[in-house]
């Protein structure tokens, strides 16, 4: 955990801002608590693809933590839309399924990578950025 602390210390000057996109409130709450504890600034939450794209435009976060299964859209399509713009945020896909369930979809979407929900931590995100 020393490594994580070091990273956190490095980042303290420029805190990474995060937008969490998931339709399950329990996950959003847990993720927010966890990431804030790990030194991230959660600047917003969105429950579906449309509001995610809207919030990303408005809040200009450094990072979007994006669930694959959204009520109105496929997370990979949302990732592609989010990363298409200039000054696009980094996108990390997450899911309660394992990353191996999705094969090359993650890479093809323009996302930085995949983190399983149960494996989420500041360090796991840091490794992908």
């Amino acid at each position, binding site marked *: *955990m020393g490594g994580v602390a070091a990273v956190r210390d490095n980042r303290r000057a420029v805190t990474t801002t995060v937008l969490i996109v998931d339709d*399950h409130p*329990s*996950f959003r*709450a*847990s*993720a927010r*608590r*966890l990431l804030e*504890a790990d030194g991230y600034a959660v600047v917003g939450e969105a429950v579906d693809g449309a509001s995610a794209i809207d919030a990303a435009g408005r809040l200009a976060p450094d990072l979007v933590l994006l669930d694959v*299964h959204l009520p109105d859209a496929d997370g990979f399509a949302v990732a592609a839309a989010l990363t298409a713009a200039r000054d696009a945020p980094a996108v990390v896909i997450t899911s*309660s399924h394992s990353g191996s369930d999705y094969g090359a979809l993650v890479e093809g979407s323009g996302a930085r990578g995949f983190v399983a*929900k*149960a494996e*989420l*931590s500041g360090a796991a995100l840091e490794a992908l950025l």
Partner: protein
Amino acid sequence: MAGMRALRPALAGLALVAAASGVLLMALVMTSDHAGDRWIPLVLGPLIGWSFTGTGLYAWARRPENRIGPLMVAIGFAWLLAELTSTDVDVLHSVGLLAETLPWTILVHMLLAFPSGRVRSRLERGFLFIGYGILLPLQLLFVVTFDPLSQRCGCPENLFLVARADGVADAAQATQSAVGLAGVLALAWVIARRWREAQAGDRRALRPVLLAGGVTVGLLVVTLAADLTSLNDTAEEVIDVAGEIAMGAVPFAFLVGLLRSRLSRASAVAALIERLGAGDGRRGTLHQALADALGEPDLVVAYRVSLPDAGEGYVDADGAPVDLAPTPGTVWTPVELEGRTVGALRHSAALEDEDPGAVRTVAAAAALALENERLQAELRARIEELRRSRARLVEAADAERRRLERDLHDGAQQRLVALALNLRLARSRVEKDPAAAAELLDESREELAHATAELRELARGIHPAILTERGLGPAVGALASRAGVPVEVGALPGERLPAPIEAAAYFVVSEAITNVDRYARAAHASVTVERVNGHVVVEVRDDGVGGADPAAGTGLRGLADRVAALDGRLEVRSPAGGGTTLRAELPCGS
């Protein structure tokens, strides 16, 4: 058949009379002075008369029940009578004058009546009135006022002359021509309409008749128009001769049409029986044989079947459902065997007009063969039902797996994810902030309890452990205790039943109680599971609002398939306001 025996000599007598009259007519015309172009009436007159009587008598003998034959014979004799105008004998000449328009009138009658021999509609009756009620009296008026001697034609005397009135005679003839012309044009319209409305089987018969009739009527129009406009004599004569030649061909066309229209009933049945006897039992053989026997290429054969799902109904030879609603111009005739309806034939309505009872006769002859095909059709329909129900079972299983995946994903899995994140957070705080860590652990325990409860519920939905371990009684008891309304559990089998029966019975009760909770607005429900005559009978009643539609939801449909897969029967009685009873009967030998 006694009628037939009496008919034959009578027809033979008529044939003799026609032959003799024709010969006599020829002799009289040959010795006549006043007919200018003698060979025309000499040859054509008797020939046309004979062609009508000859073909008419043949048609009469072949189809005694059809009136086209007698009408043709009548035209033949009327023609011979009308030809008497060419003779020198006063009385015969006078009779000929009287009969002059009669053959045309009867010809129109026959065109209207073809092929049934009957005139049905008011419009058609209107035509007959114009013919018999207007044209014939006008001819009478003409005859009593017309003096042939005034024509300086060397004609014989008109014995029916009452008072010479040239103006009246001319007016009568002109009116006849005008009315006749209008009538014939209207007739052409009626016949064109009939052609458009005819079924394929009827068109085959109508074609030669309409062709010959059309040519004759066309020439008649030209003749009548010529009468009204007064062409020169040569032109008029050419038209007359052409008209007469066409007229001579008409009866043969009618005969072809009549024999084409349908075989005579007796020979149709004989041919049918022979074909069915030689049949190889292949699908479609019976249909083809029936279609040929009735002269109905568009015939539809429907088999009455009784199916486990669809109940009583009609199917085609492939087992596909057939709609018994009649299409325009067709009717259904039931086929019966030993007092039971085994099928139905859809055929042209004209067929029944033309030869009443013929379809029933043919149907009766084919009933046994139809019964055989019916059993095969029923088998095919049952297989089709089975196939559909099997497909539904697979679909239901797939849908159930999708539902389970979704429930797992949205429920327990989310809770476990949150739990993992909380534990990770607690672990990171346990040293610096033990109180916060303890709070997180409490939350986690609660989350875990929720996840466990959801998994338990899900597992019970897949297959309740209590059913496997303890049997139907305790499982139904548990369902009843969890229900939203009081459920009284009545008789239950004390012993264990085969697992598929127990499962089906359990899910019937489970689905019924779910429906009671969701829709019935009931105050009370009751459940019984009894063994009756080798069956397990499951019954769930409630006192709710009723009106449940088994076809509306997938729940009952899936249940019905599950029960049918065990050769059982599911019944829903749910009158509006009268509560709902769901009853399943499952065969259970042991």
